[in-house]
């Protein structure tokens, strides 16, 4: 097939060169974006089915949880069942839930006796802050480690960076959390051991150690991808051409190596978002943070299914949306992908 695609691509290229210049917002481009958004909606719909109906597979009955500790009369059971809409057929329960979810109403939490949106709303800022701080850390440390290693490839600094990253990657986040607490909070007393603080500044201060603990594994991932992507680009002929034209090394690296290496880095970053949200459960537990992660663990434990469903949908949505954004920025990173030409 290689030969055919070559034959074809030569013809297509000539046709493209002859055709008048197409804008970024060509018909094909609009179709692409529309297709992506459609796919996004479909993914979310399928995820909602899975998330909602998985409750029926889990052992345990929400009603008995609600009436726990009491000896319920059949009337009381019937009343609670009706109150929570659990007497309806499953598909109707699903439609009710979906209708609510679309307007931000995920029902009532069984353990807190509050709206799910309120319960989550209280905890979301901590998790978001944690994820954002971690993300910044990952971007700065991961990218610089990767860039430094790539620019010194084969030299001691490269090897040192790689060994360092490998060692870090072997540290699970709960171990990392404990070590960080032991050293910086207990021994040195620089940071608090527990809680998420009051107000913005205090919250940032409280979240320094947790965000480091959360970032460790992902720094390694981003660092390694950055390094290999940069090394690949450094070997490209267009980099030598740019050098031969008298551009400064820093300019060549920035405009031709790093810029071209961005594609794989962005792809990994998309996957990373879901990973961060999931891994935050462990870190939040270790640092006693009242965030979404610890709430999820708690709610699963207590069969508080409206909260579990809402959180899982939230994570899925975040993941799908971020990846759709990454996909949509691809033509901007690599103009060839918009034209459907084979990447080289």
């Amino acid at each position, binding site marked *: 097939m290689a030969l055919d695609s070559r034959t*074809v691509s030569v013809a297509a290229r000539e046709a493209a060169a002859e055709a008048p210049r197409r804008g970024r917002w060509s018909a094909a481009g609009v179709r692409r974006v529309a297709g992506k958004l459609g796919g996004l909606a479909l993914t979310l719909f399928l995820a909602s089915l899975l998330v909602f109906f998985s409750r029926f597979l889990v052992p345990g009955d929400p009603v008995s949880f609600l009436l726990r500790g009491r000896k319920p009369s059949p009337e009381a059971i019937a009343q609670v069942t009706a109150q929570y809409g659990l007497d309806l057929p499953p598909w109707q329960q699903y439609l009710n839930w979906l209708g609510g979810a679309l307007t931000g109403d995920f029902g009532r939490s069984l353990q807190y006796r509050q709206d799910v949106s309120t319960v989550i709303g209280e905890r979301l800022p901590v998790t978001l802050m944690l994820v954002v701080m971690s993300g910044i850390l990952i971007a700065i440390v991961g990218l610089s480690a990767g860039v430094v290693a790539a620019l010194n490839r084969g030299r001691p600094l490269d090897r040192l960076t790689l060994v360092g990253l490998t060692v870090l990657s072997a540290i699970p986040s709960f171990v990392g959390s404990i070590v960080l607490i032991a050293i910086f909070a207990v021994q040195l007393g620089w940071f608090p051991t527990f809680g998420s603080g009051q107000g913005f500044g205090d919250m940032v201060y409280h979240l320094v150690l947790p965000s480091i603990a959360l970032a460790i594994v992902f720094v390694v991932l981003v660092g390694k991808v950055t390094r290999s992507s940069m090394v690949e680009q450094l070997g490209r002929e267009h980099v030598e051409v740019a050098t031969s034209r008298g551009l*400064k090394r820093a300019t060549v690296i920035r405009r*031709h190596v790093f810029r071209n290496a961005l594609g794989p880095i962005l792809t990994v970053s998309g996957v990373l978002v879901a990973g961060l949200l999931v891994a935050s459960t462990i870190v939040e537990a270790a640092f006693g943070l009242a965030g979404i992660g610890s709430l999820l663990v708690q709610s699963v434990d207590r069969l508080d299914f409206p909260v579990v469903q809402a959180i899982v949908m939230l994570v899925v949505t975040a993941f799908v949306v971020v990846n759709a954004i990454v996909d949509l920025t691809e033509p901007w990173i690599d103009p060839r992908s918009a034209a459907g030409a084979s990447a080289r």
Partner: protein
Amino acid sequence: MSRLLDIDGLTLELHDGTRLLEGISLSVAPGETVGLVGESGSGKSLTARTVLGLVPERSRLGGRVRLDGREVIGAPARDILDLRRHAAAMIFQDPRAGINPMRTIGDHLTETLRRCEGKSAAEARARAIELLADVQLPRPEEHFGQYPHEFSGGMLQRVMIAGALTSSPKLLICDEPTTALDVTTQAEIVRVLVELRERRGMGMLFITHDLNLAASLCDRVVVMSRGRVEESGDARRVFTAPEADYTRRLIEATPSIAVRSLDGEAEADASAPAGPMLEVRGLDKQYQLRGRPPVHAVVEAELEIPRGGSLGVVGESGSGKSTLARMIVGLEQPDRGEVRIAGRERSTAPRSRAERIAHAKSVQMVFQDPYLSLDPRIPAGRAIQDVLRLHGGLDRVAAEARALELLEAVGLGERHLAARPKTLSGGQRQRVAIARALAIEPELLVMDEATSALDVSVQAQVLDLVAQLRAQRGLTVLFISHDLGVVRRVCERAVVMRRGEIVEQGPSERLLREPEHPYTRLLVDSVPRPSWEAAA
């Protein structure tokens, strides 16, 4: 006369002590074109790169390289940048790899103007558009915002040339600038280069492996081999009366299209009364692609090769010659038409294992790139034995003996039986590929650009081998190539393909001597000829 470039006793050693250049000396005067010719690994590219300070990391340099009166070796980084910006510029081999695919053509052209010369965006743009017009691109204004993938190879190479000219260099270094291009495109690019050289009075250092091209373009040539200069001097003198042995061998190995005396010309030999070995009738293939117009790769192809004959298929990239070959071998299914090999219908997809094996036994293919067509894990001997045991049902001992015979037949020996492809040279690999194809004694051998990736001296060996095998075994050969000289050397008859259609066919000598179709004439005229012959 002051020299623009003066290289004297240049040596280059890698950090592990490997010596790649041994005392290279050459010079280029303003307005002069000097050719640097040699085969792969001769160090010609490395020599040229040294001029711009583009040397492998941690390598040690010796000797002198003076560019525009300034020493390059050991110069501080600032001076090197200045030389790259003002004294010399370089055009690289593959424009598709050499221009950043993620930035626009305009960005490529204005980058140095804006970042090194401090020109404003408008000034740089005006200059870039002027240069695009200089290299004869049709719509400069429009090209400015286009991306490389929207261009054909020839157009991109013009962009590369325009990019090199942004700095108004005194010396233009061209590193195989037309090797990745079709012959007609090569002719256009060479025309552009010659015109710019005259107009700007630039000196040119032109690196190529193609002696004909060097002869058509250069005032003087330097012949290199294994990091040494073998010979240098006036181009006409070097090519017509070479002094060094190496030059002489190189010239002999280079296929030419110059037509020899006509009396000895053997038209297809009438001594083959049996029916044709290969018969292709109305073969047609279209590729349907989503969202694009269909591509008609092969249109109603008709051809015939007599038993023991050889036919060349000539065409440029995208002409459908490879698709034709793949249909004949059975790697692709034609939409219409038939292929008969030794009288048997071969155009339908083989259904059973037996049919598949019978098909493979009647026709074998040698592919373009021997680096890709041999499995890197399988030693040469076993690659051949596997085929023998699959088709011949030989036992291990017999297969091994036969594999050795085959290796010997292609000029290799016992020590190559256990050799893995990576320890073999390109020529040796292609011999193994040929031995493997011949192992089952196919009725027809299809060679798809089988010598294009090889150096001329190695190519000559492989072509001699094919000629010898044809004489000994009466092998029938279908030879696909873009190179008219090579086809002439191997094939009595040839067909010329363009955009899927066979536009002309006939005896190869006749096609070269008196091409009838305008496209054939264009192909023949595009092949570079020594400047002294063209003038005569």
